[in-house]
């Protein structure tokens, strides 16, 4: 009862539905009746009318109706609402009683059955109530359509008369296949009857109003409005119900409130408020619900009532919030959307808050020693109350002063004693966890954390320390990452008390360490106390009790601690402190991000204690990613004296070790730092990586922000110096610096295809012998993949390297190198394509050296890279000209022509052309053994070497299309290179040229120049190159510059392969370049060949010298 005293009665919280009683059904033994009953109660979905059905016996006794009051004049009401009233109308007084009776229209014993039915109807009639009665005849036969069965209509009216029923209240239920359909029609009819019943009930209650007066019947105003509203709800008229409830609500607050009836008023106000909010949510007007609730709370907040029972008010308030939260939550489940700032969580939270108040007031008001008075004033003769919200010992009492002060006193005492036994913490935790669930849903992580802290604290009060710690631990981390130190400290203090009371050693130490740390906002003396306790625990002693713990708990805890102490084992604890803000800060760093292998690796660990008193430790060790170095990174207290950390001072521990040569190129990382504390109990504080904790990253950031120069005072801030210490958790071991020099000499750019010589000279500056010097030379890997195909490297100067030579020559042994000595190596590179390349020369050797007295054998290497551009040494162009040096676009079979090649040097270095030659395909040379005209020619930059070859296409060659000429091969080298350097042979393909046959070939034989007025003999040779006799017509056109003798116009026949000569004597008349007289030739048999095609074989002009004197002639000859 104690918890449920504040619960809302179930009849208030349910949805009221019209109550219809079914009688005359034997659901246990009669299968037909059973089926009918099942059809009524199964599948009551939302689309069916809201009726609650109950099967009652035919002779069931319904609540008696009190005799109606005729006058209210002398009536003084005893309370607002009777406790049984709602239940009575929901479950006891039906709106309609339905009598089921098996009777067919053609029943042989109709008369007897009819009178039996009438008797049964008479039995169920309720005296004084307006309850309707209806009769349902269960029939085996399907009825005929109305009006057709005359017997039925006649018998129906007689039955109605006999039972005193109206025709609307008689129903027929044929027991056939369509049972459910009939049932649904039946219940709709019942629903209408019920509605009428509740309507008349409302009218009846309303009719009382005129008898009431405002002075004595205030309670009845509320009661009647409530009843009307409730009946409206039963009638499913929720709009009106809401209206009446609202009226009732304002009436309830008009009641004269005093200490004795305050509880009753609040209880009823709570009920009505609940109904209003519920209906508002149902009508989908949540804002109205919230507004109503706010109004309700504002009105009732101050109505505390009796000060001795203040806890009742808080309990009631808590319940108001809780039930509103539940209504809200239920509405959300039905589709309402809530928002972050308006969700059920706030109501649950407030409910929890009032429950906490309730607990506090209960603790103040309920003395522990009091015993329950006998007889219990809370006992009532009926076991319950007559009216809601009244006192058991003075029910119905409505005047301002209690009737009996003594009874009042014992009654209050009894209530206080009952309150003492209420499990407040459980209630609070349940409410908080409801709120947590809501806030989680509405994205309020911080609110959620806050509520979880409250839950944890409540568990602490309820002495469930394990659960408390679990919750507190869970949220601590959130407050830590958000850096709300004041809140974190408060939570830690609670957690510390929990762990103390449980004697949980590890947790206790962890919380102590964080409370001593810099994140804690505790005062110095509290820190000092905690540190003393921590030191005791470290010595395996019992710590002092935490203040604010109740004495009984502390003594139990002390016993637990003694047991812990006695346990010999499990005295070593390892605590990961990285994620906390512990009282010892640790930062470690390698002194450099990389170390050469011949240097000792230096590492520093900084420790700093934030606690008020010095703390000693036994051992500090650093673990590294390569564990063999760990042995060098340990510092241990020797014997009795331990190492001491002074608060506020930074202690630095340095470690050195020599790296192993096989670790060259690897990274060494710090994987953890461990600090051992304690004597008697050993605690290992361990940091992952190189130290730091939950707060250090932010501190380092702040320190870097303030790192700007601050004048001379900057060095005087140790605080800043610590924050500015940066962690260097890893270092690279890199190879020893080589003490050799590598020099490259070469003459860039490289020429395409040449054997490019790079001379490498290595000079040792080592103090010892550099052993096993090895050279890797060639194309630097990682460039364009095609380059490695087009680059070849060799050491052999004797021959031109080919595709089989690699692009990179690895590990060329160069032997040992004594101190100060020098070694040279030539490397030849052949690039067969132009463009830039990067070459790598990697010299590696090993040497013995000593580090910190340790002999180590290290490998050193030095890399040199050079970028070399490769260019073409020269450009070759070639052209075809006739024997007269006129450009040819085609050549004629069997007629000689000239190939001219031009070789233009583009090399910045002089080139020596050794020789050149032609490799002909179709053509043949006219000279049997042509000598190269370029032999031993030296070409400077930009100079050009030309050469010409007289070629002829032999007869019989295919005369259509183009023909390949062949290749031009040039052998060359740099002029500066030594004589034994192999020659480079560059092959240049020659262009293709169209080839043709001609039927007639003509050429002229004439001197190289003429002289004015001296005979110039010209002989034309005409060859027939066909297998036919050719008729040729020739004519010489007159010319102003020449006179001539010979045949002016002639027609001749030339036999196949034969040649005809025509001789003309020209006589120049003018000096200078003169056009020769035009020779016109036509071949009637070959119209394609005419003067135009043949003219190219003939000279067009000749130089005519003026007529000179003998002397001039001689001077010309001299020239």
């Amino acid at each position, binding site marked *: 009862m104690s918890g449920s005293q504040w619960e809302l009665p179930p009849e208030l919280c349910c949805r009221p539905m019209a109550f219809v009683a079914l009688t005359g059904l034997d659901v246990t033994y009669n299968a037909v009746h059973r089926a009918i009953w099942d059809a009524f109660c199964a599948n009551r979905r939302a689309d069916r009318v809201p009726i609650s059905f109950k099967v009652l016996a035919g002779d069931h006794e319904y609540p008696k109706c009190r005799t109606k009051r005729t006058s209210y004049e002398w009536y003084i009401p005893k309370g607002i609402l009777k406790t049984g009233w709602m239940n009575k109308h929901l479950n006891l007084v039906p709106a309609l009683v339905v009598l089921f009776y098996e009777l067919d229209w053609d029943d042989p014993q109709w008369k007897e059955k009819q009178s039996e039915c009438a008797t049964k109807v008479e039995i169920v009639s309720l005296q004084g109530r307006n309850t309707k009665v209806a009769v349902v005849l269960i029939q085996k036969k399907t009825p005929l359509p109305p009006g057709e069965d005359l017997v039925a209509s006649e018998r129906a009216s007689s039955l109605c008369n006999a039972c005193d029923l109206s025709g609307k209240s008689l129903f027929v239920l044929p027991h056939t296949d369509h049972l459910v359909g009939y049932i649904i029609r039946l219940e709709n009819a019942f629903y209408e009857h019920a509605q009428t019943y509740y309507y008349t009930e409302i009218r009846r209650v309303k009719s009382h109003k005129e008898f009431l007066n405002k002075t004595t019947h205030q309670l009845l105003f509320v009661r009647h409005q409530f009843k009307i509203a409730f009946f409206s709800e039963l009638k499913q008229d929720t709009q009106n119900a809401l209206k009446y409830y609202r009226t009732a609500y304002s009436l309830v607050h008009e009641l004269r409130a005093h200490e004795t009836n305050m509880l009753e008023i609040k209880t009823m106000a709570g009920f009505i408020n609940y109904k209003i909010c519920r209906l508002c949510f149902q009508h989908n007007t949540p804002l109205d619900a919230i507004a109503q609730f706010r109004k309700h*709370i504002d009105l009732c907040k101050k109505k505390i009532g009796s000060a001795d029972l203040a806890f009742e008010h808080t309990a009631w308030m808590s319940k108001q919030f809780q039930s509103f939260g539940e209504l809200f939550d239920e509405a959300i489940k039905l589709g309402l959307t809530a928002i*972050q*700032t308006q969700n059920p969580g*706030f109501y649950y939270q*407030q409910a929890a*808050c009032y429950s906490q108040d309730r607990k506090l007031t209960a603790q103040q008001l309920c003395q522990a020693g009091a015993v329950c008075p006998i007889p219990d004033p809370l006992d009532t003769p009926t076991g319950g109350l007559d009216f809601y919200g009244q006192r058991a010992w003075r029910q119905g009492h409505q005047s301002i002063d209690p009737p009996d002060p003594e009874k009042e006193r014992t009654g209050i005492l009894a209530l206080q004693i009952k309150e003492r036994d209420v499990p407040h913490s459980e209630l609070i935790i349940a409410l908080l966890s409801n709120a947590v669930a809501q806030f989680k849903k509405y*994205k*309020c*992580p*911080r*609110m959620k954390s*806050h509520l979880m*802290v409250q839950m944890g604290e409540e568990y602490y009060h309820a002495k469930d320390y394990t659960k408390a710690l679990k919750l507190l631990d869970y949220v601590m981390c959130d407050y830590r990452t*958000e*850096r*709300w130190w*004041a*809140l974190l400290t*408060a939570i830690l203090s609670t957690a510390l008390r929990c762990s103390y009371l449980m004697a949980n050693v590890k947790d206790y130490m962890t919380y102590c360490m964080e409370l001593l740390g810099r994140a804690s906002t505790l005062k110095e003396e509290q820190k000092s106390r905690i540190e003393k306790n921590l030191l005791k625990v470290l010595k395996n002693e019992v710590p002092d009790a935490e203040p604010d713990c109740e004495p009984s708990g502390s003594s139990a805890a002390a016993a637990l601690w003694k047991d812990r102490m006695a346990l010999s084992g499990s005295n070593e604890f390892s605590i990961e402190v990285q994620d906390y803000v512990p009282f010892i800060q640790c930062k470690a760093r390698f002194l450099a991000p990389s170390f050469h292998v011949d240097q000792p690796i230096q590492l520093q660990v900084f420790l700093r204690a934030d606690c008020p008193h010095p703390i000693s430790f036994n051992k500090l060790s650093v673990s590294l990613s390569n564990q063999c170095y760990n042995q060098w990174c340990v510092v241990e207290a020797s014997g009795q004296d331990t190492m001491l950390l002074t608060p506020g001072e930074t202690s630095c521990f340095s470690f050195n070790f020599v790296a192993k040569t096989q670790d060259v190129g690897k990274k060494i990382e710090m994987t953890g730092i461990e600090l051992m504390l304690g004597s008697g109990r050993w605690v290992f504080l361990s940091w992952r990586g190189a130290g730091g904790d939950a707060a250090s990253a*932010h501190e380092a*950031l*702040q320190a870097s*922000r*303030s790192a700007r120069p601050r004048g001379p005072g900057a060095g005087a801030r140790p605080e800043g110096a610590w924050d500015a210490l940066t962690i260097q958790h890893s270092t690279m071991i890199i190879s020893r610096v080589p003490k050799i020099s590598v020099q490259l000499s070469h003459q860039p750019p490289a020429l395409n295809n040449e054997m490019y010589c790079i001379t490498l000279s290595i000079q040792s500056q080592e103090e010892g012998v550099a052993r096993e010097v090895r050279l890797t030379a060639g194309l630097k890997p990682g460039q364009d993949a095609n380059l490695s195909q087009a680059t070849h490297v060799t050491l052999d100067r004797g021959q031109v390297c080919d595709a089989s030579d690699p692009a990179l020559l690895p590990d060329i042994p160069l032997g040992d190198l004594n101190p100060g000595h020098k070694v040279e190596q030539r490397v030849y590179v052949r690039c067969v394509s132009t463009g830039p390349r990067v070459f790598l020369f990697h010299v590696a050797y090993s040497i013995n050296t000593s580090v910190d007295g340790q002999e180590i054998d290290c490998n050193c290497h030095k890399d040199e890279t050079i970028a070399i551009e490769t260019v073409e040494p020269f450009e070759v162009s070639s052209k075809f000209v006739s024997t007269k040096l006129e450009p040819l676009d085609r050549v004629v079979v069997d007629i000689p022509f000239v190939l001219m090649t031009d070789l233009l040097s583009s090399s910045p270095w002089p080139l020596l052309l050794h020789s050149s030659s032609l490799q002909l395909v179709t053509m043949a040379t006219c000279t049997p053994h042509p000598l190269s005209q370029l032999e031993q020619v030296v070409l400077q930059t930009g100079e050009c070497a030309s050469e010409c070859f007289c070629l002829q296409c032999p007869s019989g060659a295919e005369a259509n299309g183009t023909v390949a000429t062949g290749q031009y091969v040039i052998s060359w080298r740099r002029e500066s290179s030594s004589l034994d350097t192999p020659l480079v042979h560059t092959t240049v393909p020659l262009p293709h040229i169209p080839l043709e046959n001609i039927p007639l070939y003509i050429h002229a034989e004439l001197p190289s120049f003429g002289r004015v007025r001296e005979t110039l003999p010209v002989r034309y040779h005409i060859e027939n190159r066909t297998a036919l006799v050719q008729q040729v017509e020739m004519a010489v056109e007159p010319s102003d510059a020449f006179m001539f003798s010979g045949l002016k116009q002639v027609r001749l026949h030339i036999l196949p392969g034969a040649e005809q000569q025509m001789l003309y004597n020209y006589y120049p008349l003018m000096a200078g370049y003169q056009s020769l007289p035009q020779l016109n030739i036509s071949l009637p048999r070959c119209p394609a060949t005419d003067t135009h095609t043949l003219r190219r074989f003939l000279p067009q002009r000749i130089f005519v010298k003026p007529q000179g004197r003998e002397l001039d002639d001689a001077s010309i000859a001299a020239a």
Partner: protein
Amino acid sequence: MAVCIAVIAKENYPLYIRSVPTQNELKFHYTVHTSLDVVEEKISAAGKAMADQRELYLGLLYPTEDYKVYGYVTNSKVKFVIVVDSSNTSLRDNEIRSMFRKLHNSFTDVMCNPFYNPGDPVQSKVFEGMVSGMMVQVS
């Protein structure tokens, strides 16, 4: 007048919290901390709409039974929170706004101090005095 005034850094840790000494200080810390939920939500909702033309004053964050919590976010995401007693109905929205404006101006002065390192707790006496003027005077 206010019962608690807080300045919260961009990263949501407190730069300054001052509450009336008569009541439980821790409770105000929790109130301010939990109000950040709503602030964050409002910032992210406003950030989507228009980043530069955002109203700095966030209005009433959430009402509790006893207090009203108001919020304000500067452009650099420093938050100001003012907690007012629910029973104090005389304070209008405009007055809260002007309190925030004063707070913002004073905080800007703190930031302008070359010796102040942004992100450190505010210890300025001038700021302290200005806040005291806005707090409920305990007699």
